[in-house]
């Protein structure tokens, strides 16, 4: 099974389990009500008059929320008050478990590291899925031609018996997670540091360390001959909302899921992101995904980004310590040798 598929499945499995908490000292949030309306609060402005959305934000609260909505929730995007209370209780139990000073005598040795090494949501995510539209919260059907599209040679396909560094995904090689993969909540490193200057917004994304420089000048995208993993972004303000349209992707490199996993998107992908500060410590994030060579229709993903006391981006010099590359290649060679000897 592909490594990222394992991770994605694991995340989906986790959503069936109690959610998590990170900071037991932080006061748990009150049971969430309907999301705040974007117009209910007028945020600060920069000295040059743009809405100020600067700061370091994280999607941690929706760690474990699946991209696609589990069938039992139907068209229901938000948990009920009772469901939220249950999830909040689960967060508290997880925090207590993390704080236990001694390993339980009956602890089993699993293939994963201890759970308390991971990052946790601080409060329960209100949503049953990251996909907010269509109403069923599910990815639209994939076009037949997209199902057979192959990741190009050397672009990484997570071959279970890798023969080369080129057989690993761009994520595992510490190259990129793509635009959506760099902001959708994952197991750790969800920091998004936003810095503004006149005419530009930069988003520094912790894991794999992307710096998206978004010009606000508007106008047409660069030539379609110029393509990249992260595409060509153009931003503008609509009221207090930063709207970023990104095109000119290379295509067939990363998928839409967390860490760039899932079915690779095409070179026709257009992303339209909307960042709206709805309170001092919350950004409403939405992205409309339009990939007419992959999906039968556009769809929308959304979730909150929050600012948390003391939270900051840390350096993610991923490539320099990526021992997994060497170990995985030598592991595959050892596996081949064993198979040969058995013949």
């Amino acid at each position, binding site marked *: 099974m592909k490594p990222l598929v394992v991770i994605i499945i694991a995340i989906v499995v986790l959503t069936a389990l109690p959610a998590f908490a990170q900071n037991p000292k932080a006061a748990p949030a009150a049971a969430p009500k309907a999301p705040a309306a974007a117009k209910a609060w007028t945020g600060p402005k920069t000295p040059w008059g743009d809405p100020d959305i600067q700061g370091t934000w994280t999607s941690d609260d929706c760690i474990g929320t699946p991209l696609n909505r589990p069938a039992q929730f139907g068209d229901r995007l938000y948990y009920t008050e009772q469901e939220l209370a249950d999830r909040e209780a689960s967060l508290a139990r997880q925090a207590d478990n993390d704080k236990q000073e001694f390993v339980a005598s009956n602890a089993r040795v699993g*293939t994963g590291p201890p759970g308390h090494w*991971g990052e946790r949501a601080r409060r329960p995510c209100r949503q049953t899925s990251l996909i907010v539209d269509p109403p069923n919260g599910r990815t639209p059907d994939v076009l037949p031609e997209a199902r057979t599209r192959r990741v190009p040679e050397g672009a990484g396909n997570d071959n279970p018996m890798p023969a080369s560094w080129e057989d690993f995904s761009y994520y595992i090689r510490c190259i990129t997670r793509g635009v959506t993969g760099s902001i959708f909540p994952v197991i*750790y*490193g969800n920091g998004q540091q936003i810095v503004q200057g006149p005419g530009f917004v930069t988003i520094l994304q912790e*894991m794999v360390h992307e710096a998206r420089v978004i010009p606000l000048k508007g106008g047409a995208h660069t030539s379609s001959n110029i393509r990249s993993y992260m595409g060509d972004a153009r931003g503008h303000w609509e009221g207090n909302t930063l709207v970023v349209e990104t095109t000119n992707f290379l295509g067939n490199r990363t998928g839409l899921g967390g860490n760039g996993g899932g079915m690779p998107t095409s070179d026709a992908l257009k992303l339209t992101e909307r960042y709206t500060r709805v309170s001092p410590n919350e950004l409403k994030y939405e992205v409309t995904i339009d990939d007419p060579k992959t999906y039968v229709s556009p769809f929308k993903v959304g979730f909150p980004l929050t600012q948390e006391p003391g939270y*900051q981006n840390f350096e993610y010099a991923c490539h320099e310590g990526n021992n997994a590359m060497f170990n*995985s290649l030598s592991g595959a060679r050892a596996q081949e040798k064993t198979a040969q000897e058995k013949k």
Partner: protein
Amino acid sequence: MRKTLAVLTTTAGLLLAAVPVWAHHAFAAEFDASKPVKFRATVVKMEWINPHAWIQLDVKGDDGKVTRWAVEAAAPNALLRRGWNKSSLLPGTEILVEGFQAKDGSNKANGSIITFTDGRKLFVGSSGDGEGPPKQ
């Protein structure tokens, strides 16, 4: 078989029950679920490198011979958020490691249960953003 490097014989099926969700990469690409290891070791150094920290260890056999092992730990950024820093695991500290050996048979393992010799967790998730390391 050395007392300090006892290869366990628990069935792999039971051990695979926990899904590896915290890793940047896949467990199965690097480590062998049929090669569980358990040993007592002395910390040589902790490498705070991305995407995973590694703990370099010396393991002393019954014959007194010292063997160097490396054990993969969590993402350093996550550990930092849990309040840990470069002083949290000093050289010379004795720890117990349970995990699984590298597929290529080298002296590397993932860290599944890592404790101080009295059974205390090595990295307790008791600290939040920007706070100091937990008392050890």
